[in-house]
């Protein structure tokens, strides 16, 4: 009787351990899969952010170009009117310039990112942030692959993995640059000013 109870207890402990290991490995596998897709998410984000940044800058530059032309022309008008003694005309031209400048302020309000000298810094921050997120998502993916591989190859776990190979045994590749030429190319890259 007592022997049976001991056997049953041992079996229950073994079963519990197997279930725990199995579930742990499944969690690690899903983490790897999620982190792999996180790279896609960050690539998608980069595409969208950079597209909209480019659009904002383009709009702003178009506007600035045409405004600048207009202001220069009005300035010319005012100058010639003044020389000719036509004060009313000169005043009108100056007023128009003021109008354009206040319009410019409105545009600045619409794009707070473009205000003052901060544009370049803001743009730089946005780019750095986006590229960092992409790099960190790759790092997180590799970290989760490492955790899974280390678990799967360790003792006891490896026994369970070989028992359920279709469910537990996957070979996730680490994210890498791919090929020695590519690595060499990136390594030799320097900024030329």
């Amino acid at each position, binding site marked *: 009787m007592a022997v049976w109870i001991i056997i049953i207890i041992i079996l229950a402990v073994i079963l519990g351990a197997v279930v725990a290991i199995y579930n742990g490995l499944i969690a690690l596998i899903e983490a790897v899969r999620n*982190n792999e897709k996180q790279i896609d998410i*960050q690539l998608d984000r980069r595409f969208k952010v950079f597209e909209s940044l480019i659009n904002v800058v383009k709009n702003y530059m178009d506007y600035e170009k045409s405004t600048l032309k207009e202001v220069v022309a009005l300035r010319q008008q005012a100058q010639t009117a003044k020389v000719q003694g036509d004060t009313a005309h000169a005043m009108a031209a100056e007023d128009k310039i003021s109008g354009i400048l206040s319009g410019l302020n409105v545009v600045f309000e619409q794009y707070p990112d473009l205000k003052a000298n901060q544009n370049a810094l803001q743009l730089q*921050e946005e780019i*750095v942030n986006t590229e960092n*997120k992409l790099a*960190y998502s790759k*790092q997180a993916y590799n970290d989760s692959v490492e955790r899974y591989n280390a678990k799967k190859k360790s003792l006891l776990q490896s026994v369970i993995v070989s028992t359920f190979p279709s469910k537990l045994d996957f070979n996730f590749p680490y994210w890498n640059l791919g090929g020695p030429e590519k690595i060499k190319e990136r390594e030799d890259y320097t900024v030329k000013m």
Partner: protein
Amino acid sequence: MANFSKNFKVQSTDWRQALKSNQRRTLIVIGVFILIYVLLGLLIDLFINAEKYPQVPLSVITQALITLHLIPYATLITTLVAIISLWVTYAFADKLMLLGTEYHEITAENSQNLSEKQLYNTVEEMKVAAGLRYMPKVFIIDADYMNAFASGYSEKSAMVAITRGLLEKLDRAEIQAVMAHELSHIRHMDIKLTLTASVLANLTLMIIDILFYGILFGQNRDGRSREGGNWLFIIILILRYLLPLITVLLMLFLSRTREYMADAGAVELTRDNEPLARALLKIQGDYDQNRLQYSTEYKQTPHEEVRRAAYIFDPTAAGLSAKQGGSDFFSTHPNIVKRLAAIGFKLK
């Protein structure tokens, strides 16, 4: 940085090893806490049964309790009390940490300027690197001193806070390192751990007090005395004065262990140990320079003690003695020399 190679022997950080060894230390500390607690419960049982069966020697009662021939009711009750108190604490412990400070929350939409935007971005980057499922809330505390802390362990309660002084004086990489340290506190569940330890410590002290007064006023009620009873009283008397010290030292050891782990975790996330070292040196240097002003500011902030263990830098312990590599036995944070050495910057 030039002065790094002059003053420090620079190595890379083995963060895997650091995390592993400190995790082991944590397990030992928590194990000791639980052991003390259970032993205390058994002591009560021993005391009660010694009163009940005055003729039986203490060793026999002890044996009966351990082999469960006598059911240790007191141990069961104290265990139940501990479980309930822990559950209640976990459920209601959010929102304590910002007590007494002037703060405002930063989100992706409401960031006012470049540095606030940068702060939010760095936290988000570290969240991606950690594979955290939720974004912690980000707060700026309106204070001149340089400090930061984290709290919470779930989507609802996780937060990081940073003082304006820190935001203004650190560059992007350094802020990122500090945020990685804070985020590591969150993902290592340090707040939950500290809460658990402090609840167990407080209960331990309460129980030993109850036991002490119980034996003090309950003895010789019926005029009978026993030989073993005196031994029991002496043990309880010693424990009453020893346990508070032991629990405090254990808590501080735990806190320092978790700081080392958060530093290692920060290096794990950023894969770079230099910005963290730079940030720590800057915070220490800034504190040394403005010591008087900052200590009044800290003192004027109410409820500063709830944040002490959670800060990246403990202002109360940051003395010259700490800088000279003295003992940190009585502080929540390891001293800066040891922290830098642990992430690979050994003082020459």
